């Protein structure tokens, strides 16, 4: 099985598999029909292993894991849960597991999970048992960093990134809270939000309290970070600490608001965004009902529109933060899933698009597995 796109939806998980030329796609599933699936992620260190973040309307949040490429799943024995509070402390309970990230190549079996309300969790046994990362969850500043400002799905901890050069170096993002960095495997954390706008805050130059929608780290050039924020698209080249607003170079009538941001896995200067309408009432739909992907091939200095094959008018979907990804083919494939349950694919780096699945439930995540 060469390629699989895992589709996490509000009502279950689906898998899309292509023929060798990525022309025709077959859909399999649903698995876990009726469950809310936020993320399905393959372990690149052991590709047969996958983890899935799930909950249902009534029941508590959990994680399912597979060690046969998603044919069979079993529930984590100890899903992510905050530590039991002591007398007088404010009790915290995981409402949903929102994000999953496999750990460093040198640490097989390690996974990280992000939850709502914002919590960071770690498993050392492929996802069977999860422990709270106390360095973040009990950091003295944590109640301020994650002040309980909710998106519709809660206060989300997402975009956990492990530096491929150094297992101790981690990034994460909280929506709403900002981007944070640790250099000691999560024991201590510091905000990393300089230069990022926070138009919705009384003081827009605050150190944290921002609303990153998606944060990525380039696998081959790990000092290169991109961020799609509630207030624009940004790039940061470490060790610098000040984010550059690359969205300024987007056409003014398009703007630089959206949820996902995806980089070319072999070229850190190539990055795609999917602009959404961020005007006064935040419709968060494709601009003017004409969806388009924008690509920059020079790290955000200029952008080109890619809308061939996408609907020309009256298409009002939203694409959520986990719902866009790239594969690793020589001619890179790009994919995104919409809140209306359509999956769109490009097998020419975004130049042209086709719909490869429709009528699915609201799509939360689209991830690529080998």
């Amino acid at each position: 099985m060469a390629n699989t796109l895992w589709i996490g939806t509000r009502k279950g998980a689906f898998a899309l598999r292509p023929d060798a030329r990525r022309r025709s796609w077959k859909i399999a599933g649903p698995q876990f029909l009726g469950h809310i699936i936020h993320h399905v992620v393959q372990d690149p260190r052991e590709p047969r292993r996958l983890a899935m973040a799930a909950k249902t309307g009534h029941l508590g949040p959990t994680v399912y894991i597979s060690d046969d490429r998603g044919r069979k799943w079993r529930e984590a024995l100890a899903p992510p849960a905050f530590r039991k509070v002591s007398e007088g402390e404010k009790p915290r309970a995981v409402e949903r597991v929102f994000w999953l990230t496999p750990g460093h190549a040198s640490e097989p079996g390690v996974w990280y999970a992000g939850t709502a309300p914002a919590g960071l969790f770690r498993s050392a046994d492929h996802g069977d048992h999860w422990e709270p990362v106390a360095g973040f969850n009990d950091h003295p500043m944590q109640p301020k960093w994650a002040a309980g400002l909710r998106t519709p799905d809660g206060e989300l901890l997402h975009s956990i990134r492990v530096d491929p050069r150094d297992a101790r170096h981690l990034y994460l993002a909280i929506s709403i809270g900002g981007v944070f960095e640790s250099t000691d495997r999560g024991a201590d954390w510091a905000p990393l939000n300089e230069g990022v706008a926070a138009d919705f805050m009384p003081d827009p130059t605050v150190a944290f309290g921002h609303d990153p929608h998606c944060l990525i780290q380039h696998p081959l050039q790990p000092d290169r970070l991109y961020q799609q924020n509630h207030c624009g698209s940004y790039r940061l080249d470490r060790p610098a600490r000040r984010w550059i607003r690359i969205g300024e170079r987007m056409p003014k009538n398009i703007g630089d608001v959206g949820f996902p941001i995806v980089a070319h896995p072999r070229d850190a200067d190539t990055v795609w965004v999917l602009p959404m309408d961020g005007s006064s009432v935040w419709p968060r739909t494709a601009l003017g009902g004409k969806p388009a992907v924008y690509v920059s091939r020079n790290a955000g200095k200029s952008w080109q529109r890619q809308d061939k094959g996408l609907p020309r008018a009256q298409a009002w979907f939203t694409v959520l933060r986990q719902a866009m990804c790239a594969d690793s083919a020589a001619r890179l494939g790009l994919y995104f899933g919409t809140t209306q349950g359509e999956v769109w694919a490009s097998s020419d780096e975004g130049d042209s698009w086709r719909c490869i699945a429709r009528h699915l439930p609201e799509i939360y995540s689209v991830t690529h597995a080998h």
Partner: protein
Amino acid sequence: MNTVRVPSPLRDYTGGAARISASGTTVAEILANIDRDHRGMRFRMIDEQDRVRPHIRIFINQREVLSLDEAVAPRDEIHLICALSGG
């Protein structure tokens, strides 16, 4: 032994059974025993701070359970109730 009535969303854990048996002298003990037989089921109903989740209610016979420490008599029936939403 007490009879426990299981709502449909939790029947994945009971092999589809709508009623199961569990023993215990308190609600907490019964839940622990349920989890021993049906691993993972308790956490879907009770959060890590031992609070019943928002869409679940537990009743002993007709009486609502306000604390997991409440005593359960040998013939009491435990009802796990899930909020329904269909119309």
